[in-house]
């Protein structure tokens, strides 16, 4: 493959996103059609690169001997690229129906395309500096998406998201500086690039790593830095579904993995107090997110709390700092992406068709929207971790990795199980209401509610099938993931 291919994958959506601003705001069909075409072509380019691209490093710009924009797709990067490239066009298709009656659609589609560019950049970044640049770009390009409804709640949410993200990247910046000061600016290497004697002793190095961990974890919604994610559920559903369940939050987790396994190195961090702190924080967030999801009655916010918990599953797996833990974390990245995007799509379909936002208003709606809620029910089972769905496979390997590590990890294993139980409560209560309403529910008000249209249903159904297939063929997928990260 020619070496300009990968930069093309990034520059094409960038240019196309900028060009979208030139289209008229009124013609929804044109905007939607263009965006769908652009994202589909980009995904095709990305998939071609994943399959035949190779691992050569491609330097874009060199600012200084130690600072260069470098693209390189190792197995981890290709995996994340694959997740993104699969989900993005599907979400655009969904938005084609969801955003139809909304205001400011031009900026929505334009920034949605720009965010795609940023996310690809994060996944394809070859060193920490590049990753940091695209990470910031991702923040900037997603703020307008939260702002899109232009209500006061949306403004507050966008402001909060922005401030949290900037604060977080500042921390991450410190961690990066520490690496640069050691001349460790090279491309990501499994096992880390921090070699030789570290200044200030290992304790200081671990402290700086912890700064970076916390900084990147802002996007991964680690407690107590998760508030922005809950508020951001005011954004339109395609944004909450793709960005706040997959692209943005998982970029955070991805960056943490890059920082830990590929920069500071597990040799330095494993079995240290810093690892223990990270594990405990993740384990706590797992229980915390699930508990709050049980208490939350706003449908989308409940799912957002569930995202908080599930992101910490991923962080927990990665912070075990074993190959098995990393593989399980990656598996859960893909599994949770699929599951959560479907459940958000369902919540969005309900919101779009009936204007209902609360779980208590779901009574009986499943019979009016059977396909939507069939998908939701499957995603609920998958999120609980029932075999043979994909959520089960990833959780099983997470538990196995935790058990293998022993020690503090057992606390995390306990947290995972408790959380599975709480997941069952908060997902199934919603599903139960939708299918089997309470007797005193007002079913007459449902008469005007209809099933969502095909642009919403197609992504949902496809991804639901994906959940089943990824579950049934869990073992080959795990092998592929293990091969990708070089095990």
């Amino acid at each position: 493959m020619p070496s300009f291919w990968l930069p093309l994958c990034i520059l094409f959506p960038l240019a196309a996103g900028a060009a979208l601003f030139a289209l008229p705001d009124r013609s929804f069909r044109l905007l939607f059609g263009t965006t769908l075409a652009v994202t589909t072509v980009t995904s095709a380019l990305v998939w071609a690169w994943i399959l035949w691209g190779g691992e050569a490093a491609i330097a874009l710009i060199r600012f200084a001997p130690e600072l260069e924009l470098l693209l390189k797709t190792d197995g981890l990067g290709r995996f994340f690229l694959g997740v993104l490239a699969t989900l993005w066009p599907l979400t655009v298709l969904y938005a084609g129906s969801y955003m139809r009656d909304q205001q400011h659609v031009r900026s929505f589609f334009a920034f949605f395309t720009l965010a795609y560019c940023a996310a690809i950049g994060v996944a394809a970044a070859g060193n920490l500096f590049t990753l940091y640049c695209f990470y910031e770009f991702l923040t900037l390009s997603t703020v307008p998406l939260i702002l899109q409804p232009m209500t006061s709640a949306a403004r507050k949410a966008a402001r909060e998201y922005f401030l949290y993200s900037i604060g977080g990247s500042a921390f991450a910046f410190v961690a990066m500086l520490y690496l640069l000061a050691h001349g460790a600016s090279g491309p990501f290497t499994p096992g880390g690039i921090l070699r030789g004697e570290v200044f200030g002793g290992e304790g200081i190095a671990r402290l700086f790593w912890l700064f970076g961990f916390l900084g990147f974890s802002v996007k991964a919604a680690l407690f107590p830095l998760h508030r922005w994610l809950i508020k951001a559920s005011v954004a339109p559903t395609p944004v909450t579904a793709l960005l706040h369940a997959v692209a943005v939050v998982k970029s955070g987790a991805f960056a943490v993995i890059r920082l830990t396994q590929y920069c500071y190195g597990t040799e330095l961090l494993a079995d240290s107090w810093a690892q223990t702190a990270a594990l405990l924080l993740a384990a706590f967030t797992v229980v915390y997110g699930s508990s709050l999801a049980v208490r939350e009655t706003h449908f989308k916010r409940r799912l957002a709390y569930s995202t908080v918990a599930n992101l910490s599953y991923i962080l927990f797996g990665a912070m075990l700092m074993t190959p098995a833990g990393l593989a399980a974390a990656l598996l859960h990245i893909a599994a949770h992406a699929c599951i959560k995007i479907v459940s958000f799509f369902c919540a969005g379909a309900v919101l779009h068709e009936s204007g209902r936002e609360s779980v208590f208003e779901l009574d009986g709606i499943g019979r009016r929207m059977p396909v939507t809620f069939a998908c939701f029910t499957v995603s609920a089972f998958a999120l609980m971790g029932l075999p043979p769905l994909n959520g089960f496979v990833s959780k099983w390997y997470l538990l196995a990795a935790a058990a293998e590590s022993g020690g503090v990890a057992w606390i995390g294993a306990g947290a995972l199980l408790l959380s599975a139980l709480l997941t069952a409560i908060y997902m199934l209560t919603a599903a139960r209401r939708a299918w089997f309403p309470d007797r005193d529910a007002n079913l007459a008000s449902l008469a005007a509610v209809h099933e969502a249209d095909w642009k919403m249903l197609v992504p949902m159904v496809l991804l639901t099938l994906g959940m089943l297939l990824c579950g049934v063929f869990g073992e080959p997928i795990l092998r592929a993931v293990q091969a990708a990260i070089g095990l």
Partner: protein
Amino acid sequence: MLYGLIFFPMAAGLLLPLIGSRSLRARNAAMAAACLINLAFSGIVLLRPDASARLAGFAGLGIALETDGFRKVYLLVIAFVWLMTTLFGLEYFSHYRHTNRYCCLNLVTLGALNGVFLASDLFTALIFFEIMSFTSYTWVLHEETPDALKAANTYLAVAVIGGLVALMGLFLLQHHLGTTEIAKLYEAAAASQNRAALYVAGGCVLFGFGAKAGMFPLHIWLPKAHPVAPAPASALLSGLLTKSGVFGVLVLSCELFRSDPAWGTAILLLGAVTMLLGALLALFSVDLKRTLACSSVSQIGFILVGVGLMDLLGAENALAARGTLLHMLNHSLFKLVLFLSAGAVYMNLHALDLNGIRGFGRKKPLLLIPFLFAALGIGGFPLFSGYVSKTLLHEAIVEAIGMYGAGLLSALEWVFLFSGGVTVAYMTKLFVALFLEKHPTRQAEFDGKKRYMNGLSAFALCASALLIPLLGMSASRSMDAIAEFGIGFFRSGPLEHAVRYFTWENLKGGLISIAIGVALYFGFVRTVLMRRENGVRVYVNRWPKWLDLEELLYRPLLLRWLPGILYPIARLFGENRVLTPLSERILRASGAAAAMFGENRVLTPLSERILRASGDAAAMFGENRVLGPLWDGTKRFFGVLAHAFSDSLDALVLLLRKTAYRDLTPEPEDEVRSSPSYRLGKQLDRIAVNRGAEKAGENRYAREAYEKRREIRIKSRRITGNMSFALLMLVIAVSAVFVYVLLLR
């Protein structure tokens, strides 16, 4: 063929709604045909040699199936019972709504249940077990009444929690032993060093399967779910689905903990409690199907006693193993007949309350004879099949006494006989109410109902019932032959000599039970559990309402206490700014604490119950003098304490607001002229005047400069009040330290 047993019914089930949307008759015919084909499959599997099949990589761990004697027999039982309930259901469901849903999930459940019994790997068993749980959930809520919804919620909760805990257990097994394959468990466990970990893992798996079986203390769903489910579904839930739970327990006991006396004792104790408690619950119940449901709990207890004995007896477990297998089979048959009879009653009267349905069975031989057969069978009367399995279990207890000596085991023997007696008593209660007594007002109407069920339903009922005496009378041929099938699966040793069922020794146990039952019926049921109202004796429910494990413990634990633990923390971080309203947050947290003690979050529901219980106790001894005031005093004391705590925090907050956190006061106006920016602007104005651009005295630059400065101050105040600003400051500080450290190098 093995896959066919699982996937054929599932596929057929998924097709039924499509047929059903065109023609209900065609759908019913298709469903009956599918059940028949399934029966044929099971028959073929029974005749063919043992087989196995494996689908590697499925859902991460792969699924594996196999057949052996026990599984083959049970697959046949399943197919038979399913066919009978389906035939009966054709009439029963003719006036129901949502029958397409029922038919579809009926067959999917059949496939899943076949899967459980075919599984040669615990993991495979659990996959099908979970599918079965979720599809049968819709049976329980089929009528969608409030009671049904509540019972279904309980059922779902037990299924989900049980499933997840079992999954945890499997995970631990996989971790410690490296396998969940049933045939390998024993060797792996024998090689394992860490016995305690195995008990934990086994306990988790037992929790999951025991919950489905109805084992104490997880039996709560049974007495609620069965009365509200449609009768054919109740028959399946009680007769077969509970057996899938027993299957799991059997795997644990026959393989993982084979001949482990500690495990055997635990199962034995749980079984004994289940057996006695279920029987007592059934005795007190005044609802036909609820009685049968509690009876299921009790009979599962009998089976578990057998399972426990198998482990206690080690190599000489032949009697216990045979008793267990035969009692499982018997119970499936009895409950099939009994629930279908109850269904026939409900189909006509839409009532299940004993006072409302009494006398309905008079002059209805097609109802009376099957019910009588099943009642005699479950009561353990000689010549009926229940007698055989109970005698075997009793023999096994006697054998265990011989091995371990008397003591607790002879207590167990009496519990066993007593539970048998209670069984006789409650079945007599049902029989007398249905077939001997007369309804005070509607008897003529009842007697007039000649067409109380159609031919197909009657066939299903009578054909099933006939098996009971047939098996019982040819026990030494038919039942012993069936028991032989279990040898491989149960790992039972050789039988020393054929059991002679009709010797005095063996008859004695049955007769003692029957005597106890008769005494209980006349001495307890007809005196304590009945009351004379308006000259008519009616059945009353004497079981205390508050004595309900679910309401007392499980619901508060899951819905309030567990998610409630983290709630104060959540509220602490509920808002995003930290500095100014920190005190307010502490206040709120302490408010939560106060609410915890003062009002109701955790302690009050509990204490209310204690209070209620103690109130009951006090009421027995006369007036409530001591406990009530004591409790009030305690509550008041904590209330005062909490208030004092929060009040003192109020004071602290006020103090902070006056000092460190006081609002910044606006700048006084007379400071304007002394501010540097104003002076700078003044100078600029002067220059402008000198250059002739402005008139003197307008002060344009001075005003603008001052406004700018004010704006900057307001903005910076907003920014400094922000958490992210705090973070940024921290980062800058850290960076400064860092740069300093680097320079030092």
